[in-house]
């Protein structure tokens, strides 16, 4: 046996296909964003507006009761400068992965920051969504290609520190 090459690896292909159900809350959001509308949902208990809405408020365990229009302007709450691309991503390096608090929402959303050099990105800066051309809109947050700086005064850290 000692002269035999040990088996150290076997390849066993795995593939499963699923028919995904976004659920009622996500479906409402996805229908809205296809039309260019940003909608959040307010928790009746803590009054926070989730954007995009989850199934229920993850703090209170309550179903949402109220739809709130969210604007496509917001505040850069935190960010990371990315210098290594993930597999299958082809964005020019370096890029800025941002967490943006869109106006009217109480939760942040992950988007790309562009239109500014990575070294000039800063927490608290005001940003605005850059949408894909209308004919490309679909049921996805990717309709917002990225956010870019908005010429407004920065928001003080104290106003959003809870989200960092």
């Amino acid at each position: 046996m000692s002269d035999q090459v040990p088996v150290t690896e076997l390849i066993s292909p795995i593939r499963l296909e699923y028919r995904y159900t976004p659920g009622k809350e996500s479906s409402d959001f996805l229908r809205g964003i296809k039309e260019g509308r940003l909608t959040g949902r307010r928790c009746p208990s803590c009054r926070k507006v989730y954007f995009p809405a989850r199934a229920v408020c993850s703090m209170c365990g309550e179903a949402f009761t109220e739809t709130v229009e969210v604007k496509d302007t917001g505040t850069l709450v935190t960010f990371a400068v990315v210098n290594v691309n993930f597999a299958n991503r082809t964005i020019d390096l370096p890029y800025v992965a941002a967490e943006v608090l869109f106006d009217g929402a109480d939760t942040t959303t992950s988007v790309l920051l562009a239109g500014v050099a990575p070294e000039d990105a800063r927490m608290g800066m005001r940003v605005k969504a850059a949408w894909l051309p209308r004919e490309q809109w679909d049921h996805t947050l990717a309709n917002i290609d990225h956010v870019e700086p908005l010429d407004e005064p920065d928001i003080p850290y104290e106003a959003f520190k809870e989200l960092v």
Partner: protein
Amino acid sequence: MRDVAIVSYSQYTSRREDTRNEIEFLLPVVKETLAPLGLTTHDMGFTVSGSSDYLAGQSFAFVSALDAVGPWPPIAESHVEMDGAWALYEAWVRLQHGDIDTALVYAFGKSSPGDIGRVLALQLEPYMTTPLWPDAASLAALQARALLDSGKASEKDLARVVARSRRSAQDNPWAQLKGDVDEAALLDAPLFSDPLRKHDLPPVSDGAAVMVLAAGDRARQLTANPVWIRGIDHRIDSHALGSRDLTVSPSTKLAGEKAGVTPDIDIAELHAPFSHQELILAEALGLDETRTRINPSGGALASNPVMAAGLIRIGEAAKRLAAGEGRRAVAHATSGPCLQQNLVCVLEAEQ
């Protein structure tokens, strides 16, 4: 041992649930279970769930589901990648510690988004068995064939199990498959996975089950009809299908002995997703159908939300004892291929 009782139970089951996601249908069941007790999640000493992310095809789906219980400020919680019956076991052990008096147990799962037969192949021994992608029905059929060839059961016995399930399920609002069916007519149906026919298989179901456990006097404070867990045990057979005698279930037999199953059982809820498995389980637990009502809910042949179906057996048995339909019940849950893992729970109504 500390006496622990089931004090509240609710469930939800449907065919393919296209509108709501798991969290959206779990939330109302949690509320429905807590409401009669006048309690909230934050009154629970411990929260534990059972589910499998492979059903949803999403990593950490079980963490998302915590949204449905409102986990802020932080709660003490745990999760088992098992049927909710094993979550109940963990809650029961946790209550034995003596420092808490209540626990919330929940289970949920959608069998419909993927091909459940293939999804379940991922729980098999990964080197030699999973690469063959044997679907759950084919494996069950191997077991059924072994049982028939052993002479311990006939195809008529399988049809009898299905017909009783369909008849009993007529009173179960959550049952998907029910009706007054003729045993002989069942045998005229074509074979699906020889020797099993389509009706020997469970339906594809989505669903959730939620339960509150309480210890000792706390249970009596919360309800006039606590259902006491007199014994609970779970055991496992070999992972290697080829090394097992598939016509018997030694792990069920042992778990039943440890849990204290005796012949004086009024109601048995056995988690047998395939008809022939009910016969194997009844034998392992020494149940006599002339003495014990077996699967009065219709069992998993009537509805089978994977990961909740075992906890539902315990809930169904408890519900009937609380309603005065009997004094002692046995509830069973299974997991793994061909009844590989088994949990047995003996329940008693308040005297």
